[in-house]
């Protein structure tokens, strides 16, 4: 249940940036290959933000699709999981998108 610890980090970042103001909306980016479940994050966010400036804030989650680049031929391809087979036959495919875990934006009152 690493979502709990991830959410604690999100709330810490929000508190740091909010400057004591009440937070209305938190926008985060969670890549589809990041092994984080958005539903679990939402559940944890309600718990972790209680009695902080982020209590009651809307959690907006942007998903980024996985994308890989072949280290042998340079070709780029969509990735539905963390590993892929390039059409050149190589399995050395580096994930270049889809593992994002980022707090992007806050909206304070």
């Amino acid at each position, binding site marked *: 249940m*690493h979502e709990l610890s991830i959410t604690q*980090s999100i709330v*810490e970042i929000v508190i740091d940036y909010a400057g*004591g*103001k009440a937070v209305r909306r938190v926008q985060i980016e969670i890549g589809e290959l990041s092994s984080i479940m958005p539903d679990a994050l939402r559940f944890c966010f309600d718990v972790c933000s209680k009695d902080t400036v982020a209590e009651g804030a809307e959690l907006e989650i942007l998903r980024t699709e996985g994308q890989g680049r072949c280290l042998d031929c340079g070709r780029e391809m969509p990735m539905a999981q*963390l*590993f892929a087979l390039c059409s050149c036959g190589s399995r050395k495919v580096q994930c270049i998108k889809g593992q994002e*875990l980022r707090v992007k934006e806050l*909206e*304070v009152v």
Partner: protein
Amino acid sequence: MCTTCGCSDDAQMRLTKLDGSTHSHEHTHADGSTHSHEHAHEHEHEHEHKHENSAESVGLRQAPDKSIQIEQDILFKNNLKADENRRYFHERSILALNLVSAPGSGKTTLLEKTILALKNKVVINVLEGDQETANDAQRIRATGIDVIQINTGAGCHLESKIVSTGLKQLNPENGSILFIENVGNLVCPALFDLGERSKVAILSVTEGEDKPLKYPHMFKAASILILSKIDLLPYLKFDIDLCIKNALIVNPEIRIIKVSALSGEGLSEWIQLIEAMLQKPL
């Protein structure tokens, strides 16, 4: 955050040193019953007060919502502390290995045999992570080396901050080896950098051949894979070649060693790899 053991207020993290001295401590958070130290607040609270003549209270206009661009990595703090740990290891030429696996793969047995094979040549310290009990630390302590048990309570993985706190207590000497035995869990520990040189994944042959495909994050994050308990192969249907193939699909660069900690088969290859890493710092 507790400045003694690095635990956060609600994580119920505990740290116990088993080094032959009598020092140990335990405390419980959340219910407040066994607090013996004060927690410092990490941030200041700004209180806003409405004044009678403020714009809002006299109904002139309400300030519009304000957007703040952040773009900060959620794991930023963990990664920062992990970098600190990495510098600490580098400056002292310490080889730090993070052992990760599902529960019951044989991490502690492998560690016991590894320590016995190496402890006369190099100083070894261990950080043991488990949700509860000091059982594993006691087993490691019986080999005669210093060990700290970290009990994560509700936590399912170790983070760089608690490793840093453990390092302060262990104070490992230059040129030594630090084994970090992570909490038995194939998911969460993959995400958290501790500052280690390598993650070593352990997969026992009593598990499924497709584990690397099912838990790709861990096998991608690891640079070494130990296939353990191979003495049991004659009694199992486990297809070891298929398992190796699956591991290489997920991570073509992973170094795979087949080991039986019980019979000693393959142990020398693992020991030689550790010695080579120790002699060749990054």
